[in-house]
Every structure is written in structure tokens, then in C-alpha cells.
């Protein structure tokens, strides 16, 4: 876009976030801050057992406790609470048990809600929870994923199996590549490995909270959610409330990471409580409740076979997953591992590919989206495999990747998993990363330390990644049996004074969309950054939208904003031509000025806005409004990529692991706000490194979550992490006009394998071939010891959960 000198482009500027002044000076409004007249408070009675039949619930003592208004059990809500929605039946014969918001007959994970206390104060509600007397008949819990998959004890006998569904992609059948069996039988080398994707807890900063006001014409729901629009549709469908009678508001929301991409039992319950009492109701969970009751992420067993020629050229990839659903199917539980199916080939040219995933129920809280959702699991597995292949062949890990990756002049590239990558330059990102990292010097140091037998050994971890962002082309989602589309909506409203309101269907909860959207619109319409107001998260204001997840907001929602702004310009040109007495075709628009081509005649955007408002002198038949809506359905996903390098120091005597240096070069296409992009990458890296080194949700054999608080579930903070070196290459996306690709998940995806590859690179010399995540000092130490005594068990595996080794 051409702009005049007075208007330096906003896009690309590291603008401080508009949102922050309010958020950091206490003018925030989170759901729990809401106070309504006569509001009642909810507290949940949760099952301490992972699997049991409810034999009786005595609520009499709770009901007569001070301040208690009502106590509801599953039986009280039978017939009106429906079943929690699953929007992604991955196969036609997918099996799933009914999922009532409040358990009716049985409980199937520890933390499941069995009764609800409604009281005049939060304290009264919580005190009365202790007075609800529930009798359970314990049933045998099935906690271990591999055990559950063997179908020895059935969690839901009526389903006949613990398997929910098996989903297969075969490149030979799809016509996107060769036959994996042939590839493997013809291979010069086949490497098979099994990896464990441990269970993680999305540790968003603001616990979930819902307020429901039933006193107006519409039932108004405030919720700490990523998805106000989807929540509205799903509440309507689940509870049979006319959608037009529901208004959903996501006010300030303190992080989500996929953990708030859910329609929750607690939301349904708060709506029902408001309906039963006729009063506004609030439920805010405690952190401990978040840990046991909000969905978890990851939790898969991945078995991969890769076939290759002796020179390192990969000829095929065979992937078998067992994915832990937990006790129920949440909103997209079943689809999360399937999202990964398209990413196991990573940035590589694999000629044959087969993927098979079996979704399995266990007596744990259900899994669902967590930052990256399926794609970090895929990237971890393939990037670990590329290192394993390099090791088997005695090649440098960079070299084996170079041999197989798509070259920059081969784009657009049709992948073996049926996607079309529009653009990328893996060579450029890798070259830049290697240079910033000082790869050769670190390799030399590694050799020196090895030779001198240093107690602290150095390892270099390499990972590349790409992911499918910008979810999603609606037709593709349809083909995958997802219940909704992937478009996004925006509206640009031009106020009489030339200021602009932008309504967006995405729902920011920490991403800084208000700032980025302002930058986009400021450039597009030539108005000041400060004169753009971005409105979101209230279905009464933002009437259409599909919300925020899957690094979609900019690539899809941002494009809707561009499309709406362009419609405004087209309308305004007609008015400008009229005011300038010229033909519309002769009007040019740049830097907020409409000019007649080849003359110095012009009129400003603000003047046109006022002329339209006054409507005194408009062209015949012109509708007096510049406001414009646009709904943008992407034609393709976007494919950011990057190369991440980690220098890992491992103390061979204590097993302590330290990130000495971390370099990443990401290519997220064009950048609207580099500071926001850096922030996304930094946060993503912290979360990805956390999976590699720190975090794991551990259940004991009876299904009790042992990591039920932040003293047990280790979320890293600044002292645990190094200073990151982040940089970028820019290869614009060719499928959207902004040339953007999405950055929300990038750091999380590539960092986990980079770290684990680095740890292994340091200790492979002792015969260690794997360390299960998180690579805690205990696991690393045990792996080294086991390998040194030559038991051949130097894998750092400690069985499911790895309870003993976790500390």
C-alpha cells in the first residue's frame, strides 16, 4: 500500500498494546469481578473417586445450612441438562457415553460434579458443599492408557469397548503418495520408536468463571471463555434455549491456551441454576478445581516407523497413535489427535505416509485443545524421529533434515498428507538460526567436553516445524466432519467524526488483537491508530464470529477486517467522486485522502464520513452509510515455519538439565506488530520447554490427580528459563492479502523436540536412547545410570505416570 510521508505505516510498528494500560492499572473486568443485584453463588460437590456408582445423595443438611438457597443433584436436572456437546465426531461409528453436566448415575473421573450448592455468598456455598453426603459404590477405575486400550475392564460396558474411534489416513488410498508397506519393505533402513506425550494441564492465569443473569429479555451469560459465539450456539442446542434469547459475553479473559476452548459443565450448570432460582448466579472455580475439573491436553502414545535410504532420504512414515480421551468427549476432544495427522510429515517430502489413531477412554478428566492441539505432538514425534534417523545413519541432524525438506523453489507444495503448503523458506530460516546460534563453535565445545569427560556435558537440540494455522477453510472442516465452518466476520463502522469502530468475531484473551486490528485499519483507512476502537466478545455487539484458537485470528479474522475496510473504501469512493464532481473510477484513495487521478483535487476520509452522516448531498440512490460487514472464509490454511536450536547442559552426576542457549528463527509471514509476535514466541517457548522439562499431570492407580496444585504441577517461571534469542525470516503467505501466517502456537510446537533432542544429544554417548518427558533430573539421572550399567534399559522410561521419577 502506498502511503504519504506523514503516515508512516502502522503495520510493522512495535506499538505498545492499547489493552495494557487498562489491564495493568486494575481497570480490568474479569467475569469474577461482575457483581449483580441479588446475585447467588455456586459451589460444586465433586467426586473424590475416579469411578463409582452414586448410590445416594443426602442434601438435607446442606439445604438447611445458613445462606443456602438450593441444592441441585444430577437427578434434579435429568431431562433438562442434556449432554455436553462434542462437535467433532471423527468417524461415523464414533462411540461416546452420555455426558451430563452433573453426574446422574455414575462418576467417571475424580473431580466430576455430583451436586451443586446455590447460596447467598461464596463462603456459604462452599461451607455447605461439605454437608452434602454422597454415598458411592466404588467401581474399578481404568487409569492407564495402554491398559484401557486392551479392553480388559470396560468403563462403559454398554459401549462394549473403551475405544471411541479409529481414524486412518493412508496416502496410497488418498492418492497423495505411495504405499507405506511397500516403502518399508523396500527400505535400506527402518527406525521404529515409541514416544509418550505426557498429559499436561493448561495453566491459564484466570480460573474459569461464569455469571448468568436471567432477569432480562435475553439470558445473559458472562464467561471466561475463548469462544463466546460457539458457546452461545452450543448452550442453545444443549439446553433447548432459543439462540435469540441468549447473549454471551467474554469480558476480559485471562489466558486460555485452548483450555477455554470448551463448553463446560460449569457453564451449563450456572445457566440452569439461574433458571431454577430466577436470580443472577455466579460460579468461580478454585485453582484446585481447575486442575481436576478443566480439560487437560496431550496424552498420547505415539509409535512411529520411518523408512529411508542409506543416504538419509526418507521413503515412508507410518504413525500409530493411542490417544487418551479421558472419561468423556468434550467439544473437540476426539479431533485433537486428528489435527496432528496432517503434520507428521512436517516440512519434509515423504513419498509415502500412513496415520492411524485410536481414541481411548480412561477414568481421567477429558483431554481437549491445548496450545497447538495435535500439531505439537506430531512435530515432536517427527523431529525426534529425524534425530533418531540421523543417529542411526551417523549423520548430522541438520544434514538429514536438509536432505528431506521442501526447497524454497518447490512451493506451492502438495504434501503427502493432502495439504498444499503455499510458501516457505526452510533454508533461509535454518541458515539464520545456525548463524545466531554459533552451531559450529558449540559442536566444537561439545567435542571438547566429551573428550575431557566433563561432568557437565553439552547437547545440541535441533527442531524445525511447520503447522497448519488459520483454522480453517470451511470446506475442509466439512470434509473432516467438524460441526461448524472456519470463516470469520468483521464489521467496520464509520462514525460521523471519521473515527472508526471495528467489530471482530474473534475473541482475544491476551493476544493483543485490539492493537493489531487498530494497526491494520489505521493503514487501510488512513485514520489514526488511536482513532480505531476494536469491539469484541459480546454476541450483542459482535453478532457473528467463530472466536479465537488455532492461530486463526489474524490470518482469518484479520482478513475479514481488511475485507470490511475495503468495502468501506469502495462506498466512500462513490461519495468522494460526487463531492469532487468526478467519476468514481477516477478516484484514488491513499493515506486517508480521496483524490481525483491526475489532479490535486481531494477530500479527506473524515469529510466523506461527515457528508454521509449528514446525508444532505449524496449521489442518487446512495444508502447513507459507510458501515460494512465482511465474512471471510480462507481458501487455505497458512503454514508458518521455523528452525529452533537449543544448547542443553546436562549434569551427568545429578541429572540436572539447563537450557544454556536457545535460538529460534520463525517465519510467520508478514508481521503486524513485532512486539506482539515476540511476546507470542516467548510465551510459546516457555510452554513448550515446560512440556520437555517440567510439566506432567500425574494420576495414581486409583485415578486421583496427584499434581492437583501448583506445588506439585511445575509451571516454569522466569528463573527456570534462559534469555531467548528470537529472530525472523519473512516469506509472506500467498493465500491471504495480508501475507500473514499465524504465530500463536509456533514457540510451543518447535521448542519441545528441540529441548529433548538436545538432552539426548548430550547423553547418547552413554548409550541413552530416550528420556521420557518431562526430562526431570531424576529421569535423566536414571537413564544415564541404567545405560552405564549396560542393562540396555537406558531410556528413562518409568512406566505410565512415572510417579517415582517425577520428583
Amino acid at each position, binding site marked *: 500500500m502506498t502511503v504519504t510521508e506523514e503516515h508512516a505505516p502502522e503495520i510493522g510498528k512495535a506499538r505498545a498494546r492499547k489493552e495494557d494500560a487498562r489491564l495493568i492499572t486494575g481497570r480490568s473486568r474479569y467475569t469474577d469481578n461482575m457483581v449483580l443485584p441479588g446475585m447467588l453463588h455456586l459451589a460444586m*460437590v465433586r467426586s*473424590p*473417586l475416579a469411578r463409582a456408582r452414586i448410590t445416594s445423595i443426602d442434601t438435607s443438611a446442606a439445604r438447611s445450612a445458613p445462606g443456602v438457597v438450593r441444592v441441585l443433584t444430577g437427578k434434579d436436572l435429568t431431562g433438562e441438562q442434556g449432554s455436553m456437546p462434542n462437535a467433532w465426531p471423527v468417524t461415523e461409528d464414533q462411540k461416546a457415553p452420555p455426558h451430563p453436566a452433573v453426574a446422574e448415575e455414575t462418576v467417571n473421573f*475424580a473431580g466430576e460434579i455430583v451436586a451443586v450448592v446455590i447460596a447467598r455468598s461464596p463462603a456459604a456455598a462452599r461451607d455447605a*458443599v*461439605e*454437608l*452434602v*453426603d*454422597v*454415598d*458411592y459404590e*466404588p467401581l474399578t477405575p481404568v487409569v492407564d492408557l495402554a491398559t484401557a486400550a486392551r479392553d480388559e475392564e470396560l468403563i462403559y460396558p454398554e459401549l462394549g469397548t473403551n475405544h471411541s474411534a479409529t481414524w486412518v489416513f493412508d496416502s496410497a488410498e488418498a492418492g497423495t503418495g505411495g504405499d507405506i508397506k511397500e516403502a518399508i519393505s523396500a527400505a535400506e533402513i527402518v527406525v521404529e520408536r515409541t514416544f509418550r506425550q505426557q498429559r499436561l494441564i493448561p495453566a491459564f492465569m484466570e480460573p474459569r468463571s461464569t455469571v448468568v443473569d436471567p432477569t432480562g429479555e435475553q439470558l445473559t451469560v458472562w464467561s471466561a471463555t475463548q469462544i463466546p459465539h460457539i458457546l452461545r450456539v452450543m448452550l442453545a442446542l444443549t439446553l433447548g434455549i432459543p439462540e435469540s434469547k441468549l447473549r454471551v459475553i467474554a469480558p476480559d479473559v485471562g489466558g486460555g491456551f485452548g483450555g477455554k476452548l470448551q463448553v463446560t459443565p460449569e457453564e451449563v450448570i450456572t445457566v440452569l441454576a439461574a433458571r431454577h432460582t430466577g436470580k443472577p448466579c455466579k460460579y468461580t472455580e478454585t485453582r*484446585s478445581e481447575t486442575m*481436576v475439573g478443566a480439560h487437560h491436553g496431550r496424552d498420547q502414545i505415539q509409535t512411529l516407523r520411518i523408512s529411508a535410504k542409506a543416504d538419509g532420504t526418507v521413503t515412508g512414515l507410518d504413525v500409530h497413535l493411542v490417544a487418551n480421551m479421558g472419561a468423556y468427549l468434550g467439544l473437540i476432544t476426539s479431533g485433537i489427535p486428528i489435527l496432528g495427522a496432517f503434520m507428521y510429515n512436517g516440512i519434509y517430502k515423504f513419498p509415502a505416509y500412513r496415520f492411524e489413531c485410536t481414541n481411548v477412554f480412561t477414568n481421567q478428566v477429558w483431554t481437549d485443545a491445548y496450545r497447538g492441539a495435535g500439531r505439537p505432538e506430531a512435530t515432536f514425534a517427527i523431529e525426534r524421529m529425524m534425530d533418531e534417523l540421523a543417529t542411526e545413519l551417523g549423520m548430522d541432524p541438520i544434514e538429514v533434515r536438509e536432505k528431506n525438506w521442501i526447497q524454497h523453489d518447490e512451493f506451492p507444495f502438495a504434501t503427502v498428507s493432502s495439504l498444499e503448503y503455499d510458501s516457505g523458506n526452510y533454508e533461509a530460516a535454518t541458515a539464520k538460526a545456525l548463524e545466531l546460534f554459533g552451531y559450529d563453535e558449540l559442536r566444537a565445545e561439545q567435542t571438547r567436553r566429551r573428550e575431557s569427560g566433563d561432568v557437565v556435558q553439552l547437547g545440541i537440540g535441533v527442531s524445525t516445524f511447520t503447522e497448519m494455522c488459520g483454522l480453517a477453510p470451511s470446506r475442509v472442516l466439512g470434509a473432516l466432519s467438524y460441526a461448524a465452518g472456519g470463516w470469520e466476520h468483521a464489521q467496520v463502522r464509520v462514525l460521523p467524526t471519521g473515527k472508526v469502530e471495528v467489530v471482530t468475531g474473534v475473541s482475544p484473551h491476551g493476544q493483543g488483537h485490539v492493537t493489531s486490528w487498530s494497526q491494520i485499519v489505521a493503514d487501510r483507512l488512513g485514520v489514526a491508530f488511536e482513532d480505531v476502537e476494536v469491539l469484541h466478545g459480546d454476541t450483542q455487539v459482535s453478532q457473528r464470529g467463530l472466536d479465537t484458537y488455532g492461530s486463526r485470528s489474524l490470518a482469518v479474522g484479520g482478513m475479514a477486517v481488511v475485507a470490511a475496510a475495503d468495502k468501506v473504501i469502495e462506498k466512500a469512493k462513490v461519495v468522494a467522486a460526487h463531492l469532487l464532481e468526478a467519476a468514481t473510477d477516477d478516484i484514488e484513495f491513499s493515506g486517508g485522502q480521496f483524490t481525483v487521478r491526475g489532479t490535486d483535487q481531494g477530500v479527506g476520509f473524515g469529510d466523506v464520513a461527515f457528508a454521509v452522516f449528514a446525508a444532505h448531498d449524496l449521489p442518487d440512490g446512495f444508502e447513507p452509510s459507510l458501515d460494512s460487514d465482511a465474512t471471510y472464509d480462507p481458501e487455505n490454511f497458512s503454514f508458518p515455519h521455523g528452525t529452533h536450536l537449543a544448547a542443553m547442559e546436562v549434569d551427568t552426576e545429578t541429572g540436572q538439565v539447563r537450557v544454556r542457549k536457545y535460538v529460534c528463527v520463525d517465519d510467520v509471514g508478514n508481521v503486524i506488530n513485532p512486539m506482539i509476535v515476540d511476546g507470542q514466541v516467548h510465551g510459546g517457548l516457555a510452554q513448550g520447554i515446560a512440556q520437555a522439562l517440567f510439566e506432567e499431570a500425574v494420576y*495414581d492407580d*486409583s485415578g*486421583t*490427580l*496427584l499434581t*492437583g*496444585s501448583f506445588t*506439585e504441577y511445575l509451571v516454569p517461571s522466569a528463573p527456570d528459563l534462559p534469555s531467548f534469542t528470537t529472530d525472523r525470516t519473512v516469506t509472506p503467505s500467498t493465500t491471504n492479502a495480508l501475507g500473514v501466517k499465524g504465530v500463536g502456537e509456533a514457540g510451543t510446537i518447535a521448542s519441545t523436540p528441540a529441548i529433548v533432542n538436545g538432552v539426548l544429544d548430550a547423553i547418547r554417548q552413554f548409550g541413552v536412547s530416550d528420556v521420557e518427558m518431562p526430562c526431570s533430573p531424576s529421569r535423566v539421572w536414571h537413564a544415564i545410570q541404567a545405560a552405564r550399567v549396560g542393562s540396555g534399559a537406558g531410556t528413562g522410561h518409568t512406566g505410565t505416570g512415572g510417579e517415582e521419577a517425577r520428583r
Partner: protein
Amino acid sequence: MQLEHHFEVPASRAETWARFNDLEQVVPCFPGASLTEVDGDEFTGSVKVKLGPISLQYNGSGRYVERDEAAGRIVIEASGKDRRGNGNAGATVTAVLTEAGEGTAVEVVTEMDIGGKPAQFGRGMIQSISNKMLDKFLACIREKMTDSA
């Protein structure tokens, strides 16, 4: 979780056996425990425990599963649930009495099963607190038997 204890009392096996079979004597020795009712081999009662920040009161019942005087073997099973819904707990206590010189040696193996909140938050504490409680329990019994000896 399995806890093992061993101690000796300066009383004959027959005397010790009688003590161990007298619930009114045995139960009050357990810290925080009170007996509500005894009916033959069965009993009901409660146990109060403080586990760090969590106060628990388990109400429940138990029974003698095995009383083999010839083998000197007693097995008591008890289970209860917390009054405030924090979870269930169960224990199987197996005591084996053997003659040791003038006195009696007592081997106690306790199989404990604790679920819910205490397991979730008190994992690090359960073992040591359980051990401490059993220590107190057995010390009390030993004392009683020593006194009467």
C-alpha cells in the same frame, strides 16, 4: 500403601491376644479415633486426622475378618468416608503374635488405601503421618500391655 511395624510386649501371648481382641481397649489407642458401637465382630466409629491444611473426619465401620488364636493371627478391616466429602479411606491391619522369651512379639502390617483430597494434596505427608499415627497407636497398646503385665 503398606506400613510395617514390629514390637515386643512383656506379656504372655494369651494375655496379648486377649488385649488385641478387646476393641474397647484397642480403639482408644488410635489417635483421633472413637468407637461408636460394637456388635460382635463388627464395630462403627470415627477417626479424626489433620493432614496439613486438610482436616478429615472419617466415619465408618470395621470388622474382624480373621481371628485365629492358634496361629496368633488377627486381621481387622476398616473403611470410612470423610464427613465433608473429601474422600474415602480404608485399612486392613494384620497382626501376628508370636512368643518371644517371656513376652510376645507383634508383627503388624497395615495396608492403607486413601483416596480423594488427602491423596491429592497430602501425598508427601500421608506416609509419614500414617506412620506416626501407627507408632502412637502401637506405643499406646504396648504401654497398656506392659502396665497390665
